[in-house]
């Protein structure tokens, strides 16, 4: 296969969601190994960066996706009249606690924020930024929460380690 690069680029281009290396491998079959795919992806990424156009190849939520550069945002909004996802400060705070402390129980989030978080938490669940990841093995078996893949997609992150670290708190 001599046009691997072109195929990979096209596969990502037509996808609505980030495409993982595994998925690309599945499509390309036995002939191409993951190492080669990773190399090709790196080359494409590099090419777009050098080109400095309106679109870049980004690593998002464990996959690859084309995303626009930040400086063109105003024009895109003008054309598509998109109303972005807006989160209230309370929701952002709650999300931040879940992000850095996951898996976490609701009561622990409330401990940090000092207020009841039922409403905001429900909102985050509805927006699919947070999900229930299981139950804690303590009496009452409370639900524990974590962030979703969608969270990584929305916040332009490759994975959770991509996040800035929380300012250290002295214990």
């Amino acid at each position, binding site marked *: 296969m001599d046009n691997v690069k072109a195929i990979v680029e096209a596969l990502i281009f037509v996808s609505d969601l980030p495409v993982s290396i595994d998925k690309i491998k599945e499509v390309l079959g036995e002939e191409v190994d993951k190492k080669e795919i990773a190399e090709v992806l790196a080359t494409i990424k590099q090419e777009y960066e050098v080109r400095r156009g309106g679109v870049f190849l980004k690593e998002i939520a464990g996959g690859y996706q084309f*995303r626009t550069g930040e400086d063109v*945002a105003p024009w895109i909004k003008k054309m598509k009249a998109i109303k972005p996802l807006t989160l209230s400060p309370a929701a952002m705070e709650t999300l931040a606690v879940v992000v850095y402390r996951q898996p976490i129980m609701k009561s622990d989030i409330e401990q940090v924020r000092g207020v009841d978080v039922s409403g*905001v938490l429900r909102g985050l669940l509805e927006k699919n930024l947070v999900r229930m990841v299981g139950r804690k093995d303590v009496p009452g078996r409370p639900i524990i929460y974590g962030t979703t893949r969608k969270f990584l997609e929305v916040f332009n992150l490759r994975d959770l380690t991509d996040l800035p670290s929380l300012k250290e708190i002295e214990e």
Partner: protein
Amino acid sequence: MAYEIKLDIFEGPLDLLLYLIKKNEIDIYDIPIALITEQYLEHVEIMKSLNLDLAGEYLVLAATLLHIKSKMLLPVPEDEESDDDEDPREMLVRQLLEYQAFKEAALNLDKMSVLGRDVFSRGYSPKEEEGEEEIPIREVGIFELVEAFRNAVSEAGNEELMEIDAEKISLSETINQIMDELNTKKMLSFTDLLGGLESKTRIIYTFLAILELMKMRVIRAYQAVSYGPIRICLAVGE
């Protein structure tokens, strides 16, 4: 007329406390409990009088503050070798620092390149993002508004006017007045609106009208510098 504002526009008692600490330029490790408690209770009272649905958590923290205050008033026996000679404020300070760290983290999250706001991808469908309308409070926080309201109330003076007949004010009428003013003047300061008013009822109605208009996204409130004058203008030009 009952007018309720949902509580989720508040970030909670810890946020109020942090706000007061910042406003007074206080060292978080050495909080003057008496001063802070007094100001905290004052704000809680205002929120109560505004009929904001005050959550129990605000009162819990108020109780904690009073408890710490009373503890600090008690003399510490010098001869006793005790384990609990720690500063009664320590627990609270730790909680405040932790909260502050997450508040910062939240701001940092907001600075990321958010999909649909800063960056875009194929197939990004805005439809699924259409959540419930959020109240625009980014420009000026509720505490700043409450603070400005407090100033207006205290400037109204204690001159008790003789009551002849209860003043009949309606919220919609007040809203219309504000809109009329904004249509001619384009931009008004918060004090322009509240300053000239003499009765507390009128101030409260004007304040409620501003909140209602902000909620409906008809007007926006801006502030050039922290604690500076709050300016109000129409959300849409023309």
